[in-house]
């Protein structure tokens, strides 16, 4: 069975759904989104659900700052009947070494230049923001009240529903198996449900984007890396902001539902597609978090899972056209922070695909930077 479309979006995570919605909104008539499993089954539905403007490079600060502004009105824009559970109760980034203090002050300088309302807080002030935090060994922290949380399932659903209303066709449990070309130009996608011919194709397939690009002979530096995470039973409000420590490699936030979501970055993690959950993670996570927030000792863990980061060498996403294959675009390599950037990325990708003047200087996110060596190394990741 062969069908035709004006554009095909590969991947039903937040980035694919936001891109499909924006394509339709900008007038692209027939958009088809193809998802191998169900919507938000990839990193999106497994993520920490945190959104923050406090980044260490300009490209990340801009995307996060403007995406969070969009989240403030997203329910109205998408006419979503439910709630995307957006809350702005801040992010507290903890500094435990002199070097971190220095780096964080540099980050604040950059953030202020870009209009991000972050500030340095002393351990005493930290105590006021999070009374339950153990401040032993803490040099201070940075805090931004505009940062916070948003529900990834609901946000993806909001984009998907709005996209459908605009005529986007969403095919779930359908896998893209090949990317046919006509000389160099992309011709469409081959899927488990047949061929879809289209002049524009975008891969928003997270860690699997590298495999897709290989089908057209392009090698993208994107590496899968497992990240584990857990959630506790819901309890009364104990913690306002997301608390993040790059020193411990941890983050923890109490979500509106009442449960605590927390995760750990393991520097020894092997770069592959392994998504198993381990006992070691539970043990290490529990040790670190009960040190930082002793009040959580009595709280029960109900579930653990893991997801894949799509890491790039500079921990910054790859966005834009693939010059070798006209008609083929990529939005991937989010390196653990793609959920919070998706509102702007979806818009940007639709503009670029449709040949409109993009609202942001997209070149700085292009894949060319790896060949040219002009990387933006993001220092602030777990």
């Amino acid at each position, binding site marked *: 069975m062969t069908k035709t479309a004006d554009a095909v979006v590969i991947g039903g995570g937040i980035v694919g759904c936001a891109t499909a919605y924006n394509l339709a909104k900008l007038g692209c008539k027939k958009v088809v989104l193809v998802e191998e*499993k*169900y*919507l*938000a*089954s990839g990193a999106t*539905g497994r993520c920490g659900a945190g959104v923050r403007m406090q980044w260490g490079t300009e490209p990340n600060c801009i995307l996060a700052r403007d995406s969070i502004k969009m989240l403030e009105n997203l329910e109205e824009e998408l006419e979503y009947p*439910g709630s995307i559970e957006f809350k702005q109760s801040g992010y507290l980034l903890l500094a435990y070494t002199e070097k971190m203090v220095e780096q964080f002050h540099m980050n604040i300088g950059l953030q202020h230049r870009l209009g991000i309302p972050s500030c340095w807080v002393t351990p005493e002030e930290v105590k006021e923001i999070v009374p339950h935090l153990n401040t032993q060994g803490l040099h201070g922290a940075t805090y931004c009240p505009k940062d916070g949380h948003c529900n990834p*399932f*609901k946000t993806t*659903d909001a984009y998907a529903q709005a996209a459908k209303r605009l005529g986007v066709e969403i095919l*779930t449990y359908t896998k893209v198996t090949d990317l046919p070309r006509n000389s160099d130009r992309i011709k469409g996608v081959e899927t488990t449900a047949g061929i879809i011919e289209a002049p524009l194709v975008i891969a928003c397939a997270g860690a699997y984007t590298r495999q897709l690009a290989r089908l057209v002979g392009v090698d993208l530096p994107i590496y899968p890396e497992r990240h584990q995470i857990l959630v*506790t*039973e*819901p309890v009364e409000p104990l913690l306002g902001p997301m608390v993040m420590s790059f020193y411990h490699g941890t983050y923890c936030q109490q979500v509106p*539902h*009442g449960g605590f979501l927390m995760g750990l970055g393991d520097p020894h993690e092997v770069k592959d597609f392994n998504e198993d*959950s381990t006992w*070691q993670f*539970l*043990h290490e*996570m*529990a*040790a670190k*978090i*009960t040190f930082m927030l002793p009040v*959580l*000792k*009595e*709280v*029960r*863990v*109900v*579930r*653990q*899972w893991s997801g894949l980061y799509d890491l790039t060498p500079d921990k910054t996403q790859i966005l834009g056209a693939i010059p070798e294959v006209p008609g083929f675009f990529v939005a991937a390599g989010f390196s653990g922070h793609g959920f919070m950037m998706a509102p702007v990325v979806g818009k940007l990708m639709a503009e670029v695909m449709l040949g409109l003047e993009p609202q942001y200087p997209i070149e700085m996110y292009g894949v060319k930077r790896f060949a040219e060596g002009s990387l933006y190394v993001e220092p602030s990741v777990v």
Partner: protein
Amino acid sequence: MAGKEYAKREEVTVICRCEDVTLEEIRTLINQGITDMEQLKRLLRVGMGPCQGRTCSALLAGEIARATGKYVGEVKLTTFRPLTAPIKLEVLTRGETHD
């Protein structure tokens, strides 16, 4: 977690007791065409509570089967994730560190 207001309604069937999800809410989504258990779980939190769906999964599968005309055994259940039972963080800190 605040409970829902049921006061004035005559009859309410709660399918997921842990997460306070009613049959009516489930039917609303099923009627919108969402019959994938993984999707229902993520949109309604049904099965995400402390019992991890041990109480409600079978009921939910039955409801999906009724709506789609499938045999219950054909309804795909959600991926089971550890832990088997809720455990306090304090307890998890104990034991050997890994090798």
